[in-house]
Structure formats: structure tokens, C-alpha cells
């Protein structure tokens, strides 16, 4: 189990600061079971995510991590269980409901709009905030004009924040992988989410890109108070930045606790050694 034992100096302070901010339960998944034909992707999984925390979901390949995020934002409909989001109970969440309710996400295999520029991709994240009527848009009058300017200014702040000003007008299909991941994060941030779901945001990145991404996630969490749930295979990252960790294995919940607790959990160690992973 490749766990970094020495976290960076600031992470302890950061964790301490976050601890003070972590609030009530924002989202709870309760007894979720999801099957695809004979495959049990998730069996009776329950955990919660508190406001303001960074929650990691880890586990070997095929453990059901992505499926869990898909259940949370309404992509997959679980056969059993329910989701409590900000106190409201959903047995069936729908993607646009999740979006409206303040859940944004990125995908394991980047899901950007390839034919559109970086700027337009991020602007799509503002769609739910825009109200201009059809005629206002067609004639570019009233809100059709003012909203475009207002939202553009908002999006520019995200572009600055994520340091992607130089690729503003480039079609995303032409960007290298690491930058595409960043644009996808930008689009999710543009939604001003309360909960940000990140599916392997650092997969396939080089060390420098990973460090940048870590910094962005921590900054988002700190500056905007955004709750983050992320799936990640790199244990040093997980141990470094997360407040609590959920471990899934074969669709079952294996462990749930602080990085320390999880790291020392015998079942977790065995699962990881058992599949020679990590």
C-alpha cells in the first residue's frame, strides 16, 4: 500500500482550519444497491458527506466508485436505497434536478463539448443562471445582452483562478489532456455548486499537473467553501487533502473514516494487497 507518510507542512493547518468549518450533513446515501443485469455494482452502501469537507472515495478498479457518483447525480437509478440531499429525500434523482440543486461533477473520461471553445464550455456551466427570453437572445437586447456580459465576467474570474487565460478561445478538442481536465473543472465550478463531484481529477497527469490540481481543489474548498467528493487512486493525494475517506470494494462499503483510520484498517490493507493495487 503506497501511502505517503509525510504530508506537506501546510496540510495539517489546512485540515485544522477546515475542521472548524465542516458543518451539517449535506448529502447522505442510504442503503444504495445498484445492479447491471448480474453485476452488482453497489450493494447496500451508506455514507454521508458534510458541508465544507473534502471527502475521498477510494477502492480498487471496478469497486463501484464511479457508479456511486453516477447515483448521486442522477445518472444511474439505484434499485434500492435513497439519497438525502440537503434534508430532502430522493429515491430517484434526475441529472437536471441535481444540477439545479447544486451538484456539479467531472467525469473519469473527460466529458467536454469538443467542438466548442474553452470559454463557451465554461459558459455552459452558467446556463442555469441565465434567464433571458428567446427574443432577448435573438435580438441581443435587455437581458440577452446584459446577462452575457455579467456571466462572461464571472467566467473570466474562474478562468483566471484556474490559470487558463491563454486557451480561452481554443476549441477544447485541441487541448492536451491535463488542460482538458482543468477546463472540465472550470465548467463544474461555473455552476457555483455546493457539492463538487470529481471522478479521478488527477488521473493521467504528470507530477506538476497533479500538484496544480491539488492546489485548485484545496483553494476551491477553502475560498468558496465548496464541499468536494473525489475519487482518486493516488494514495498520497488522498491522505494529503481529504478529511474523511470512504473505501469501496466489490460494491461494498469496506471502511469509512479519517485518512489515519482508513490507512490502518486491516480490511483495507488486505483488499489492497489482495488485488495488488495502489
Amino acid at each position, binding site marked *: 500500500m503506497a501511502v505517503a507518510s509525510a504530508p506537506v507542512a501546510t496540510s495539517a493547518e489546512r485540515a485544522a482550519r477546515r475542521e472548524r468549518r465542516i458543518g451539517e450533513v449535506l448529502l447522505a446515501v442510504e442503503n444504495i444497491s445498484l445492479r447491471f443485469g448480474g453485476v452488482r455494482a453497489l450493494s447496500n452502501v451508506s455514507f454521508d458527506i458534510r458541508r465544507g469537507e473534502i471527502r475521498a472515495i477510494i477502492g480498487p478498479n471496478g469497486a463501484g466508485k464511479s457508479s456511486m457518483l453516477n447515483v448521486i*447525480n442522477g*445518472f444511474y437509478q439505484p434499485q434500492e436505497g435513497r439519497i438525502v440531499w440537503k434534508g430532502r429525500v430522493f429515491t430517484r434523482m434526475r*441529472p*437536471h434536478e*441535481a*444540477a*439545479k440543486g447544486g451538484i*456539479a*461533477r467531472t*467525469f473519469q473520461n473527460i*466529458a*467536454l*463539448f*469538443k*467542438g*466548442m471553445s474553452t470559454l*463557451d464550455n465554461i*459558459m*455552459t*456551466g452558467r*446556463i*442555469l443562471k*441565465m434567464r*433571458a427570453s*428567446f427574443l432577448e*437572445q*435573438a*435580438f*441581443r437586447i435587455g437581458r*440577452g445582452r446584459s*446577462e*452575457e*456580459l455579467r456571466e*462572461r*465576467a464571472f467566467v*473570466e474570474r474562474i478562468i483566471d483562478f484556474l490559470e487558463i487565460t491563454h486557451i480561452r478561445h481554443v476549441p477544447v478538442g485541441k487541448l492536451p489532456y491535463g488542460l482538458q481536465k482543468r477546463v472540465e473543472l472550470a*465548467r463544474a465550478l461555473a*455552476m457555483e455548486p455546493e457539492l463538487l463531484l470529481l471522478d479521478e481529477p488527477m488521473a493521467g497527469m504528470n507530477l506538476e499537473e497533479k500538484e496544480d490540481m491539488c492546489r485548485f481543489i484545496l483553494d476551491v474548498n477553502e475560498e468558496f467553501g465548496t464541499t468536494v467528493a473525489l475519487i482518486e487512486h493516488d494514495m498520497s493525494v488522498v491522505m494529503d487533502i481529504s478529511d474523511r475517506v470512504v473505501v469501496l470494494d466489490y460494491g461494498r462499503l469496506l471502511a469509512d473514516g479519517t485518512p489515519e483510520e482508513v490507512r490502518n484498517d486491516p480490511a483495507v490493507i488486505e483488499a489492497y494487497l489482495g488485488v495488488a493495487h495502489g
Partner: protein
Amino acid sequence: MIYRETGQFRTSYAEDQAIFRLREDRIGIAAILAIAWVGVPLLADEYLLRAILIPFLILSLAAIGLNLLLGYCGQISLGTGAFMAVGAYSAYNLALRLPELPLLLDFFLAGLIAAGVGIVFGLPSFRIKGLYLAVATLALQFFADWAFLRVRWFTNYTPSGSVTAPVLDFFGWVVDTEREKYWLCLAFVCAIALLAKNLVRSRLGRSWMAIRDMDIAAEIIGIRPMHAKLSAFAVSSFVAGLAGVLWAFVHLGSWEPLAFSIDMSFRLLFMVIIGGMGSILGSFLGAAFITILPIFLNQAPAMIGIRLSTAMVSHLEFMIFGTLIVLFLIWEPHGLARLWQIGKEKMRLWPFPY
């Protein structure tokens, strides 16, 4: 360096969001508009206006309509001809049965009726995609062909099924010369092109493109696929319907249902593919190309002393279209518009390419 970006700083987002961001582009479009509005009507003869420029303008308009649906929203349609027919026959019947309405209102209402039909035939797009959707829209084409031929009410029980447009009287302005017809079409094309351009750079246009590029990702940012697709069908059909009215009332004068057959739908599809999917400019380039190529094929061989039969010319036409479409689909799905843009980018850096 005749065409360049350096030294032109944009100091506000409003400037950066302008349709034509570069000074050279703005000068260019102003020149084109001046030529189109003043130069052409002064210089062009009747034949050129009637046989080439007016059809070109109307087909550009229809191509914009199809491009909004296919190029921007990614929903394939083989029924553009049918939407044009709906527009044409709606305007005809409105003018015939409600003569007290002003003609301009008839045109507008005809567009709305086409939009309504577009929404109904866009409903299957919720369940089906790609080839299957193409087949569903093809069914609309055949249905429209049948309805306008067989349901005699639409053609006011004229024995031949051929109908004639009313006098083009817009609040006292009677459009009867070729030059006036040209201006009328130009006005519609300029207005609709501008509105279309505004739409595609607004929220609605971005939600269409999001659906086109990846519908599942569009859903998670809160776009409702049904809403985006149906609005694309509606706007696209409105524009196609309006183009149909102009084609029938201004270009043809009197027409038969065959005027809007599957041929028309395919021609418009070719225009969009060759001109450039997802580009308003491309709609014009495609329409120009497809209008001019047959004329060129008719005249060019004769000029260099080769005589081709008319049959041969039309075979050649199809062969060239076919080849070009395959080539564009493989190498440049963004068509002539993209080639134009690449050319412009080269010019921007010229003479210092890096």
C-alpha cells in the same frame, strides 16, 4: 501584414463578444453589405438576379435553417424541403383565405406554422438519434409530398395542383421587378442571419451545441435535452418555412408540390455539409457553391471548346457533389467555412509564420 490582430486590444468583454472582432473583418463585412445592397442591384442584369442571386439568397436562408438544426444541435434532418413546403402553402392559404391580413404577417405566421410542424416532427428526436432520426424526418418529407399533392384543400382545388402566389404588396410597396425582389430577399436574409448569429452565441445556441457534442454531459449541467432539441427544431423550421415562402412567392411565382421534394432537402443537406456545419457563414458559402457549380459546368467546357450534353453535365454535377461531400466529411466536417478561417489565420501571421 494586411490582416492582423496585433495592436487591436479589446478593452471590454462587450468588444470581445462582438460578432466581428477584428477591424479587418468589420471593414470586410461593411464592404460586402454595401456591394450586396447597392453595387449588385445597380450592376446585375435581370437574368443574373432572377436565375442566380435570388435563388442563392433564398437557399442560403434555408441552409441557415438546416444548419441551426444539424450543424449546431446535431439533429439530422432530411425534411427541410417539407418545412419549406409547409411555409409556402401556409402563406398561400393565409393570403387566400384571410386577405385582410398584411402579407408580411402571412409570412411570419407561415414561419410559425412551420415551426409548429417542426416541433411535432422533432418529438421522435427524444428517443432516436442519427440514422433513425434521419429516416423519421424522411417520412415527414414523403408525408408532405403526399399531403400537398392529394389534399386538394391546400392547393385550393386547382385542377393541376399548381398554385400562384398573390401580388407581393407590402404595405403599398409592390414588389414586381427583379431588383425589388432581390432587395426583399436580401432584407430577409440579412435579418435572419443576424438573429441566427445572435442565437448561436447566446444561452440557447450553447445549449444546442452542448447537446450536439455530448448530450449526457449537457444534462448534468442542467440542460434539458428535450427542450434544447425541440427549440432547435422550432427555430430551424421557422427559418426553413420562411425560406419556403420566399422560394414560392418570390422566386417561383407559381409552383407545384414537386418544387419542395426530397431533391430540395438533399440539396440543402449538401450545402450545409460542403459549406460548413455549425457556421452561419458556411451556409452562404455552401449555397453559393451549389448554385454556381451547375452554371459553371454548363459554361466552362463550352468556353474551352468541349461540348457536353445536358445529361452529361448533370451527371458531372452529381459526381462532383458526391466526391466533395465524402472528402469534406472525412477531412473537414466544418467545410468551406473552416477552410476560409484557416486561410484567415494564415493571413494573420503572414509574412511571419512560426
